[in-house]
């Protein structure tokens, strides 16, 4: 079996300027902070970040924003990080943030569609709102739905609670959120793990993410205070 265990720095080494990166977590609960820190240190720029929210300035993807590394943010909620509004409205062209807001359920489902080979799905969410702009409306059995397309990325940064050396992963409590879908929808998947165990130690009934999706595993994560 190929060794996947490495440092956070080694794990983020292949990530290039302009990469699209999915980051697990909900208000940074379930975000791999060590991997974010390694990405801040690496300093890659012009990133497209796909995350439920913008975290807060000192946590989660908020750190990448503060450090000026994000060009485009795809998220469902950014209200708890005041830097988002500042950067969206800045006159300094090179600091300007593009923020694409997606309803939370649609965001989760688009990522799932990306990972599962669907060409899209029909959701009632957003019909008749500005979310529908530019999207095909399809009527099924008398009800209108928006056609939403799949979302994929170059990289996914995943926070695992327990990960075995193959990459089989479980998520504790509400840290699960977007992590399982993101782990299926990116070319290069890194698990930031709280605990790394031997293969076989996790009950096969309880594994959530299969190791087949995982390219790199870095330890040292913990349940971080928001």
């Amino acid at each position, binding site marked *: 079996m190929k060794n996947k265990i490495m440092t956070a720095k080694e794990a983020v080494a292949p990530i290039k300027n302009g990469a699209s990166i999915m980051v697990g977590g*909900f*208000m940074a*609960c*379930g975000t791999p902070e060590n991997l974010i820190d390694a990405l801040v240190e690496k300093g890659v720029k012009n990133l497209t970040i796909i995350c*439920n*929210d913008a975290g807060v300035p000192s946590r989660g993807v908020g750190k990448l924003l503060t450090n000026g590394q994000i060009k485009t943010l795809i*998220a*469902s*909620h*950014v*209200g*708890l990080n005041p830097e988002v*509004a500042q950067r*969206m409205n800045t006159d300094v062209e090179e600091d300007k943030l593009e*923020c694409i*807001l997606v*309803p*939370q*359920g*649609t*965001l*989760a*489902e688009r*990522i*799932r569609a990306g990972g599962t080979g669907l060409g899209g799905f029909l*959701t*009632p*969410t*957003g*019909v*008749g*709102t*500005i*979310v529908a702009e530019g999207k095909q409306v399809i009527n099924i059995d008398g009800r209108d739905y928006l056609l939403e397309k799949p979302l994929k990325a170059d990289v996914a940064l995943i926070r695992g*609670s327990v990960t075995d050396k193959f990459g089989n992963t479980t*998520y*504790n*409590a*509400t*840290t*699960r*959120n*977007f*992590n*399982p*879908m993101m782990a299926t929808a990116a070319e290069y998947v890194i698990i930031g793990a709280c605990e790394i165990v031997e293969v076989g130690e996790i009950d096969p009934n309880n594994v*959530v993410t299969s190791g087949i999706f995982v390219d790199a595993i870095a330890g040292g994560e913990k*349940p*971080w*205070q*928001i």
Partner: protein
Amino acid sequence: MADIKEIIAARVAKELADGNVVNLGIGLPTMVANFLPEDVHIVLQSENGIMGMGPAAEKGKEDVDIINAGAQYVTINTGAMYFDSAVSFGIIRGGHVDATILGALEVDQHGNLANWIVPGKMVPGMGGAMDLVVGAKKVIIAMQHTQKGAHKILKECRLPYTAVGVVDMIITEMGVMEITPEGIVLKELHPDFTIEQIQEATEAELIISPNLTAMK
């Protein structure tokens, strides 16, 4: 007069039946749980991944892996479960949430709702609100009747919609209103107010229910 928010939350609580699956928005809606009768146990869904959410965590006893959708440390009740966001919104969109209770910037006589954006001023994002109001079996707007005197219950929403034609009920400190195909029907009026006063505080024309009762 009792605290306005408590009046509203107490009245909303009466809309919930034993066993209901309910999603409470941040702020006032969260208070609803405090006003449930002893024999009514509801199952709280938190869209970030909990079925069976409990009260806020005690100071010093927080488990930082357990938050609610407002990023507050919470607890879970016996029999709870966790799930990912795709499963969570599958539950929501699939019609398995009996009621969602949330605030509004504007709501209109067609049941249209605006509560996520004030263009050019406030762009927090819709979070899970668009899915919740489209998916939940019953959408209850719990809010103060006006915003510093300005109308919030309108003929037509002026702000961008959260969703179209989804609101079932509006509960404010002034009264209880139902959205019907004919318009907004005033079902209950709080004893502190007159019909003239609630109408004045409402842009949409209220239809007065022939069975109008006092809001308790």
